[in-house]
């Protein structure tokens, strides 16, 4: 019989261990802990009390019976004075005894008072034995650690949430700053208002269509916003000049991508090569661009995306020296400059995403809201379909 009892106790401890390590919701776990204890010690009633959050007052986390017992009315001093995790029988005059508690175990982890376990009379009406109390110590230690771990987990979760909110706030401030910066750049030239913002949005749309990660998409978004930051050092008169530039003026205007690079290189961005994307956004695949006359194989996909987004917006925007193009004409121009200036995969992605936006397949369009409201979308859509077919065939061939 002793052996059978020992085996039963071991099995019960294993039941408790199984519940502690289960993936259940913690409240369900607590209920299971209580039933393991009730079943092991044949108690008709019982409760597990622990500290509530965030004020730390003692509450019943789970109970069977003891409904009339209010946790805040329990005198904790005997519990706190008792040996840690050691069960005892409450004094005859105490409220716990009056409510039927036959055993109380204060739960501690090191110097932290975690809560307590209450047990009512046994179903069999037999008293709790010293062996029961010895066994109860083992249960109490495990339950105390489980409660403590859960409290630590909740602390960490709260801190994580605080950090997440802080990060989101910083990110919002960061993006607001970026937008303010972009507005300052674009304000230099009355014809390029919101240009940086549009280039950023177009670049994001293309990058997403090409399957970029959200992290890298944010990088190209920032590059789009800041690609013309070097224009801040070019005089307003030159930027807004209505007559054709002289060769010297062209050189001056072209300096902006190098100046942008120098400015951006001073900032430690969490995105790789953002300064290079900005430096090379006026390069061409055939090597006739500036500032380094690099060819396609030396240009990253980010450069190719930004170059196309920048050109498309420049084409479809009014300039001091020319009228804006309609979207159809701009698409023709992009196609005509394929391989010389623009990458076919990037143009294909641009066409696909714009087509999806026109067909209403994307909940938050990035390109469509910025296009000329006079545009005939059905004509653009059919033009895009043709381009997509053509570029897809090239893609399959190549």
């Amino acid at each position: 019989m002793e052996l059978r009892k020992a085996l039963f106790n071991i099995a019960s401890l294993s039941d408790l261990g199984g519940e502690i390590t289960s993936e259940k919701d913690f409240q369900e776990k607590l209920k299971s802990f209580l039933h393991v204890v009730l079943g092991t010690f044949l108690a008709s009633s019982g409760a597990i009390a622990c500290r509530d959050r965030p004020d730390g007052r003692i509450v019943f986390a789970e109970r069977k019976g003891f409904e009339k017992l209010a946790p805040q009315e329990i005198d904790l001093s005997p519990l706190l004075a008792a040996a840690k995790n050691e069960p005892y029988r409450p004094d005859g005059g105490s409220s716990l005894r009056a409510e039927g508690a036959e055993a109380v175990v204060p739960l501690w982890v090191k110097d932290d008072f975690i809560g307590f376990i209450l047990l009512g009379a046994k179903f069999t009406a037999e008293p709790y034995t010293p062996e029961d109390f010895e066994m109860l110590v083992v249960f109490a230690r495990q339950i105390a650690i489980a409660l403590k771990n859960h409290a630590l987990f909740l602390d960490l979760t709260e801190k994580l949430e605080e950090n997440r909110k802080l990060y989101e706030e910083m990110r919002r401030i960061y993006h607001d700053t970026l937008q303010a910066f972009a507005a300052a750049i674009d304000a230099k030239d009355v014809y390029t208002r919101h240009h940086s913002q549009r280039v950023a949005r177009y670049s994001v749309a293309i990058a997403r269509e090409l399957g970029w990660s959200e992290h890298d998409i944010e990088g190209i978004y920032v590059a789009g916003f800041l690609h013309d930051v070097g224009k801040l050092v070019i005089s307003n008169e030159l930027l807004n000049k209505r007559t054709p530039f002289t060769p010297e003026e062209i050189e001056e205007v072209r300096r902006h991508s190098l100046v942008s690079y120098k400015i951006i290189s001073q900032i430690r961005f969490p995105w790789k090569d953002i300064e290079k994307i900005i430096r090379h956004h006026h390069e061409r695949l055939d090597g006739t661009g500036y500032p380094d006359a690099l060819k396609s194989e030396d240009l990253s996909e980010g450069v190719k995306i930004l170059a196309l987004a920048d050109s498309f917006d420049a084409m479809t925007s009014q300039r001091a020296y020319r009228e804006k193009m309609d979207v159809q004409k701009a698409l023709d121009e992009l196609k005509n400059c394929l391989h010389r200036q623009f990458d076919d995969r990037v143009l294909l992605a641009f066409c696909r995403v714009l087509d999806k936006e026109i067909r209403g397949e994307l909940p938050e369009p990035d390109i469509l809201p910025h296009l000329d409201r006079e545009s005939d979308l059905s004509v653009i859509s059919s033009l895009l379909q043709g381009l997509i077919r053509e570029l897809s065939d090239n893609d399959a061939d190549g």
Partner: protein
Amino acid sequence: MSPSSFQVTSRLIDDVAIIYPRGYLNNLSGENIVSECARHAQAGVRKIIVNFRDTDLINSIGISFLLTVMEDLRDAGGTLCFSGMKKAHLDTFEMLGLTKYFLLFTDEDAALRALGGGQV
């Protein structure tokens, strides 16, 4: 059957409710056995047979729920019979001193005959 799989069904023969716990009586779904017995007790049934023929496991959580069943029926002045218990479960109940709180039968028919209920 998965360790968390536990179902309770029941039927009424005359004034006797027969409860069929199936699977593993080792988790909180075991509470269903308490509610099923309570449902019959509330309808006035005072004779309950729990047929453990298809109960594969009873652990400490299961014992806790069975204690509630025993207690509820004892308080209501009813009669509780267990039938079809596996030897290992019966040995545990004996060791815990619980066998005096229910009548034990090898099978459901024997329990029904003892309670004077209808034939199966």
